């Protein structure tokens, strides 16, 4: 059953990539939402009761949008990946910054 070996070998890589991108990006997105709400000084429910609405915190808003930008970057990379594959290029991460190289 050589196929089982190949399949398990592929499976854990897919799982790893899936966790980093598929769970990681939404988590960053959720942090962005949390940060935005905090920045707006919104009331929130905690374990010890409801916190009073606070003052506006611009830094929270900025961090929130920064986190959204990270997510959008991730999505753009994902789309580039699909498109590049179709045109005979591939994304290369070997020098940290993603670059397009010919297959």
């Amino acid at each position: 059953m050589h196929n089982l070996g190949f399949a398990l070998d592929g499976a854990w890589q897919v799982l790893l990539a899936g966790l980093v991108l598929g769970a990681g990006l939404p988590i960053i997105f959720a942090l962005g939402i949390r940060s935005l709400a905090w920045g707006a000084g919104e009331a929130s429910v905690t374990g010890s009761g409801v916190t009073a609405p606070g003052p506006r915190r611009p830094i929270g808003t900025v961090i929130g949008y920064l986190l959204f930008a990270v997510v959008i970057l991730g999505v753009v990379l994902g789309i580039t990946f699909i498109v590049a594959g179709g045109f005979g290029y591939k994304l290369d991460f070997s020098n940290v910054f993603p670059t397009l190289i010919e297959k």
Partner: protein
Amino acid sequence: MILALVVLTALAFDFTNGFHDTANAMATSIATKALRPKTAVALSGVLNLVGAFLSVEVALTVTNAVVKIQDKSGLPKAELLADGGSGLLLIILAGLVGGIVWNLLTWLVGLPSSSSHALFGGLVGATIAGLGWGGVNWNGDGSKLDGVVGKVLLPAVLSPVIAAVVAAVGTWIIFKITSGIAARFTDKGFRWGQIGSASLVSLAHGTNDAQKTMGVITLALIASGHWSDTENIPLWVKVSAALAIALGTYLGGWRIIRTLGKGLTDISPPQGTAAQSGAAAVILASSHLGFALSTTHVATGSVLGSGLGRPGATVRWAVAGRMIAAWMITLPAAGLVGAVMWWVGDMVGGVAGALVVFTLLVIASVAMYLRSRSGRVDSSNVNDDWDAAAETPVAPIPATATN
């Protein structure tokens, strides 16, 4: 003449592939009302169209994964061309019919089953009937993940589990992070999260699945001597396959959307975001690694996972069990239809045989369409409460392999 029937049938398969798989991308967005049903299917249709054109890579060797009717460059095996290619065309035709019939039947009972497995099943069945057991690539040659076992069976078992784990982890952490925040932030935020991630799934679907039809049509053209270039696909094939899958997607398989969006578990916007991002990441990562998997299995697994990951959510395991049962019989059932169609076509013989097969397909399709008219599911009632609806005629018929 036979060639025209094959092309028509291939486009029909592409169409069923589209409407069968709308649910994979859009069921969660429709269920959480992030998008209105009509808007969702329109968006998905357009992205499938775009995706289909992005797939410039030639998928001519698509059948090599499961059957031995082509050589490595994509040219049909010489011994199959002795009779002007009509023997090969009949195998392709019978295989496609097997795929379409199974797609329609699973749509009728509202079960998301893999369109690519239906196609592969039909081709395997038709090949066994036409060339015998040796014509099937069961287990590859040992050098890479290949064959019916490596390209179909193992990924089918592994991919839903992977997708479920990713979505469950994502959902669980998202609920931890956003607990207690005012709903006006989470609702608006995750609405966009859902639309974005669902769009990515649609795009990836167009790129992956339209290619298969393009490959099959081009193979038929080569077999009948109408095309010889294995590096390129005729433009009209690309355009018509892209349009067929987009149109099918836009029509929307509402029955399946309903099962996936409402039946499996009740989805909230954060879950939808986690489920679709998980699905998109798993699909992209695996196509990069050459790990062939079905969009349907991934999407279903991730919806299930988002139900497991959300504190307090329930998963309807009876629905999940029925889906898994349908997945297990997809290959043999589509194969059986494919084999029977080949025998019928071969018995009658020649152009008449192909016509008979095509007519049988039309009769079966019309019958299933008429059957679907009672207990209709469309954009107006796709979101009705699942448990209340179970008493109406929509109640699923047991998924048996009749045809």
